[in-house]
């Protein structure tokens, strides 16, 4: 393919993209890299989704029908890893690449070559992870949380591949985060003061600091797993003076900020969309910024709420319970602000707004179950059951993923220069909304009734609800194909989009034509 690509001279290179495969391989353009991230993320969303379909098919009935328990564990593990590191995180990085320079009036990301590299190592990481499924003994089967010693002494030989893959994902995230920080700090247009930054930029800035802080901790955790398994160390082995619970402390010190990494940019997206379709400024901009920062700081003080059953001293349990409950305050402020933004606005419900409103409601439901989980004595009953599965899918699917979809619908006209098919979009929304609730809502009941998570087979009293859940799962999976079709259709053509296709939208990205030219803001705009 590259052999047919025309060599381009320096002049042309400045004004338009190269052609063919080379354009994508060597690109340093934030828009190209944003598109690469988004397409990659969608591909991973489908791969991880296919694994979820395997899980739901096996759980459709009691008994073992389709897969053996060892493969089932590989599916739950790799589904989790792919959705977290392959689907949600790259999608937000893609949005950041596309939108942050355009929102702050910068010509590109600050470190464009590193930007290229931070994307292009990702496909290798995920190929390696997926390849490990086909090695003798299978891929990682110890859960995406890879608790030692299940992931060390008792793990399959492919664990080294898993460790290496996670390292690469971590390096990619750190590079992406550094790029975001440097861009936002140095490349804002004249007059774009801190308290004028769009919230998407603010939330991403804070997210980037979280990433830089915790991805090295994850790297440390996987490295210790590696040396425990292959080089005879005993970080997590009591027989050698180590402690398996220490693994969980290290993992969740990464893991809890990680969940905010996946939700803070979502807050930013929703804070852009709700004012736009309410035709009214965002309520409480400053408090939104402070709430985001508070959530980020608190995220470092709550990690052990994932570990209440590991046997912590009473003081530890109380400390982590109180800190976790505190997170409800800034999160509540955000939800109240969004509702106040809608109050007495002039609302319309195009697809981005539909997803944003669904986000606010369903994310809040996930927040409620999160608050319930924070209460230590009750958590003993919820912990490691389907109640937890329901909780984190509400915040991650109807939270993070819905916000990503809202963002795609909102900015798709800017990216492609075409309006998407509104009817198809509405169909996608309603199919997704109904099926996702059939999928995840009954999981609360399963958990409360006592079904543990991560089991390939279950007692008979759970059979009916599991069947409903599986049907919801298949429907939600299929609904996403509508989205794929819609996006392809929109890229290929459609009604031409105006520079500012949404009546109420604000921000510099709407001052450039649609589709956004390959290079924007080569001379910085003046922000008043």
């Amino acid at each position: 393919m590259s052999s047919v690509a025309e060599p381009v001279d320096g002049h042309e290179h400045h004004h338009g993209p190269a052609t063919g495969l080379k354009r994508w391989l060597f690109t340093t353009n934030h828009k190209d890299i944003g598109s690469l991230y988004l397409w990659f993320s969608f591909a991973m969303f489908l791969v991880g989704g296919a694994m979820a379909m395997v899980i739901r098919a096996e759980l459709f009935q009691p008994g073992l029908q389709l897969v053996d328990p060892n493969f089932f564990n590989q599916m739950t593990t790799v589904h989790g890893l792919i959705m977290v590191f392959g689907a949600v995180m790259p999608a937000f990085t893609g949005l950041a690449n596309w939108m942050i320079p355009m929102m702050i009036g910068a010509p590109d990301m600050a470190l464009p070559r590193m930007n290229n590299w931070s994307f292009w190592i990702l496909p290798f990481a995920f190929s390696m992870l997926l390849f490990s499924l086909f090695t003798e003994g299978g891929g990682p089967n110890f859960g995406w949380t890879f608790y030692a010693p299940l992931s060390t002494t008792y793990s399959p030989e492919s664990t080294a591949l898993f460790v290496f893959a996670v390292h690469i994902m971590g390096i990619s995230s750190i590079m992406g985060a550094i790029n975001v920080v440097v861009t936002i700090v140095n490349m804002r247009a004249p007059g774009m003061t801190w308290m004028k930054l769009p919230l998407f930029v603010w939330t991403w800035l804070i997210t980037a600091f979280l990433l830089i802080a915790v991805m090295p901790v994850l790297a440390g955790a996987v490295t210790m797993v590696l040396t425990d398994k292959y080089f005879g160390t005993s970080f997590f082995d009591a027989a050698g003076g180590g402690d398996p619970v220490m693994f969980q402390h290290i993992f969740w010190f990464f893991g809890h900020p990680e969940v905010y990494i996946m939700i803070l940019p979502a807050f930013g997206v929703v804070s852009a969309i709700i004012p736009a379709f309410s035709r009214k400024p965002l309520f409480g901009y400053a408090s939104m910024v402070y709430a985001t920062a508070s959530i980020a700081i608190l995220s470092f003080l709550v990690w052990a709420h994932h570990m209440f059953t590991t046997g912590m001293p009473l003081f530890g349990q109380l400390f982590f319970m109180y800190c976790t409950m505190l997170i409800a305050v800034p999160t509540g402020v955000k939800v109240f602000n969004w509702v106040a933004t809608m109050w007495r606005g002039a609302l319309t419900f195009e697809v981005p707004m539909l997803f944003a409103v669904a986000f606010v409601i369903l994310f809040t439901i996930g927040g409620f179950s999160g608050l319930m989980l924070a209460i230590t004595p009750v958590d003993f009953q919820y912990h490691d059951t389907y109640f937890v599965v329901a909780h984190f899918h509400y915040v991650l699917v109807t939270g993070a993923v819905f916000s990503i979809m809202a963002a795609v619908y909102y900015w798709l006209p800017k990216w492609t220069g075409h309006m998407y098919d509104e009817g198809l979009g509405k169909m996608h929304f309603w199919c997704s909304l109904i099926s996702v609730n059939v999928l995840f809502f009954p999981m609360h009941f399963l958990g409360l009734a006592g079904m543990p998570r991560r089991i390939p087979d279950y007692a008979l009293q759970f059979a009916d609800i599991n069947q409903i859940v599986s049907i919801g799962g298949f429907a939600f999976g299929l609904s996403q194909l509508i989205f794929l079709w819609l996006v392809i259709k929109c890229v290929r053509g459609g009604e031409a989009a105006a520079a500012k296709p949404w009546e109420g939208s604000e921000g510099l990205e709407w001052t450039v034509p649609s589709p956004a030219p390959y290079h924007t803001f080569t001379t910085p705009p003046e922000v008043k």
Partner: protein
Amino acid sequence: MLRTATRLTAGVGALLPLITAAAETPLNMTKGVTAVSQDVYQLHMTIFYICCVIGLIVFGVMFWSIIHHRKSKGVKPAQFHESTKVEIFWTAVPLLILIGMAIPATQVLMNMDDTSEADVTVLVTGSQWKWHYKYIDDDVEYYSLLATPRAEIENKLAKTDNYLLEVDRPLVLPIGKKVRFLMTSDDVIHSWWVPEFAVKKDANPGFINEAWTRIDEPGTYRGQCAELCGKDHGFMPIVVIAKPDTEYRAWLTNLKAEQAQAKAEEQKLLAMSMSMEELMAEGEKVYLAACAACHQPNGEGLKGVFPGLKGSPLTIGDINGHIDIVIHGKKGTAMQAFDKQLSLRELAAVITYERNAWGNDTGQMVQPKDVDARIKSAI
């Protein structure tokens, strides 16, 4: 859009009676059979109702906007975008609600944490994929394994009532007594959970955790391992039978006598030899119960995870090496030590079976006394 609103409010509305009615159905958390589990249930319901009320208010306001503040109704958007008073209000009020939740939660937690002055202490040890119970004060111990037949799991037999929630030897506990659990593990992390007691505690290898319960009502209570512990995590249930103290005492005395008798018989066995048929028949039973989860019923293992025994140098080579690995296990792998899990007779039978099944055909027999000799030589 009105359609959306009605659909969603109907959804939330339908939920409430469902949950209230759910007290007796398996849609809600169990109230359980201990004072602590009832406290936990109350706490759960209280917080749930608080969340419902907040949800109704917030979503109510939102749906009011969605229905009335629509552009299609010709409204002019207001332009207000801050109000310090309102913002202080909705920071302070949730804070107060949280403090109101934290107080009872702290009380219940402090009570749950107090394991002192127990009447009975049981050491619970998890291993892949079974539980071991040891009554510390009475020197009685045994393993408790899944009793559901493989054929039911593989859909070859109809599933019965307690599918996957039945064990060969349940834990027996007295009612009305404070029972302290000491939790630990022989391999990976497990978690011992009986919902009716509101006890869930991780069993960590190399460490001991504590929990306690005081059961109010006699009965059979079922739970499961709650921490992913490998391939058969879904197949290591917990069954507890709670009895009045006198019955519990009688059961314990009886069990002690039985175990002493079994030991005596085992000593007698050392002087005798079993026939090949006896060994093979018993060996197959033991193999399917204790070994087949990893090494598979056909002896071929799982490639790259659990080694096969069919035609393996271990099972057709040196007989003492084979006995040693079965009784002591293999450090750094999932292979457990079976000297405490199986009787001499069972060990002899299963080793004989492994050396002669699946075409291994060594023709060699292992007698209980051979196993006994290897165990003694290690000491």
